[in-house]
């Protein structure tokens, strides 16, 4: 393989059609930009969905007779399942404080209630929303000993779970379609460049150029397009991030931190680069193959 010669041919082709090169890079940059920003939005949306999924909880009202040791054992048992994210004990006094805060505008309700009237409770959040039912079942099994009553809105949780799963699946389908569109765009652009040089390909094959010598300059050219387009798209994405972040902050006010991690951003750019270059190589290989079959 004479890489010097192949790079020379690649440079010559690129310099021969500057308008086409600029057009190709701009179209690819636009595609990469859309993919990069969409990927970022997906990641942030996933974080927001995870936040919403973490909100539902199971509340177990404890028997007045439950000793601190029994309550502690119950908490340990729940932690041992490995499903629990947080488990907080709300004492009778804390329950009264909560009740007062919730009914501050209705003094009549407050007069009748004392700390003794309200039971202590355990509020449990799970790592994954689907595990709430298991925890509720575990607590129900303890009814009559430590637990007085278990409150778990299974229907609400189930609806929320279906909703977030639906959003995630839709996002995955959209991402797949976007990647497909990126591949088709890249194939089309590299195919066009190959078509422009079809006579050269035919002559190269007829005068005894090896297959590698015919294919490699086109591959190098498409890699060049992919790299430049990825760099441009990443720059654009980086420049537009403050606006995207501001939009996110408005959309999910107080929900989840929307700070952009440089590692996440570098990851998105890296994946975009790899996908871009890979799709370009495939596209140009297919296109050259069509004309090099002589």
């Amino acid at each position, binding site marked *: 393989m*004479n890489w010097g*010669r192949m790079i020379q041919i690649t440079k010559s082709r690129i310099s*021969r059609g500057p308008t086409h090169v600029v057009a190709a890079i701009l179209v690819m940059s636009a595609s990469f930009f859309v993919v990069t920003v969409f990927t970022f939005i997906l990641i942030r949306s996933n974080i927001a969905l995870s936040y919403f999924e973490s909100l539902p909880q199971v509340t177990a009202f404890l028997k007045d007779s439950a000793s601190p040791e029994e309550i502690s054992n119950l908490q340990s048992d729940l932690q041992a399942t490995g499903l629990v994210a947080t488990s907080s004990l709300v004492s009778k006094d804390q329950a009264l404080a909560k009740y007062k805060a919730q009914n501050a505008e209705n003094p009549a309700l407050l007069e009748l209630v004392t700390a003794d009237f309200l039971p202590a409770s355990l509020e449990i959040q799970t790592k994954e929303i689907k595990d709430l039912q298991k925890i509720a079942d575990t607590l129900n099994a303890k009814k009559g000993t430590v637990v007085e009553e278990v409150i778990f809105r299974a229907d609400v949780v189930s609806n929320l779970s279906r909703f977030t799963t639906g959003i995630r699946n839709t996002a995955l389908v959209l991402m797949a379609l976007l990647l497909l569109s990126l591949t088709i765009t890249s194939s089309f652009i590299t195919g066009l460049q190959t078509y422009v040089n079809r*006579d*050269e390909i*035919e*002559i*190269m*094959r*007829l*005068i*005894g*150029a*090896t*297959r590698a*010598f015919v294919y490699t300059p086109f591959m190098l050219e498409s890699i060049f397009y992919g790299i430049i387009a990825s760099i441009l798209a990443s720059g654009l994405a980086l420049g537009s991030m403050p606006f995207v972040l501001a939009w996110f902050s408005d959309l999910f006010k107080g929900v989840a931190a929307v700070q952009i991690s440089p590692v996440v951003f570098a990851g998105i750019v890296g994946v975009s680069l790899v996908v871009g270059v890979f799709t370009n190589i495939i596209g140009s290989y297919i296109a050259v193959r069509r004309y090099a079959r*002589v």
Partner: protein
Amino acid sequence: MIEFLEVSKKYPNGTIALQDVSLHIPDGDFVFMIGPSGAGKSTMLKLLIREEKASSGKLMVDEFDLSKLSADKLPHLRRKVGLIFQDFKLLPSMTVWENIAFALFTRGTNDKEIADTVDEALATVSMSDKAASFPHQLSGGEMQRVAVARAIVGKPSVLLADEPTGNLDGKAAWEIMQILQKINDEGTTVVMATHNADIVRTLPHRVITIEHGKLVADHPTRKVKEEAKSK
């Protein structure tokens, strides 16, 4: 040396382009291939550079058995067989010199050798003064001379010409024939498909006639005819 042994070519659509053609062309021969359009002349040339593969039979070009030639050996065959086309097939974005050098460039020949050999090929076709010109600045005859230079720059043992004078006027056509004759005199086998009756009648070379994919006549060179008569 070129050897056709009961070679047939049938295209996927059912068209039979060649049927049981057997033919021997020794080294250094000059052969005209004539016949009406669609007779199978171009198919024979395409088979010789493995642009097409024979459906049956055996085809040899020097040491290459084309029925068994692997894809990685194909470039080696094509470096032994120079090609000239009716439509020249020059690259418009390259100068005359670059078009010729391109044939060696893609083979990995070093720069010094390319420079020397290209200059030599240009001199052979009397185009040294046009080395820096682009194809669109040349006449048809000049473009064909450049195509000949590109075909011979790699010093092939066989030169295939598909209607090389088809797009040229009489004078330019004869200039090309003189060049091809010179190349043949230096030992290169030349196989030329043509419709030009004047050229075929005037030059004393072997004439093969193809009709409907079959070899219908094989007239020896005038020299061979005269030798046969004198016996």
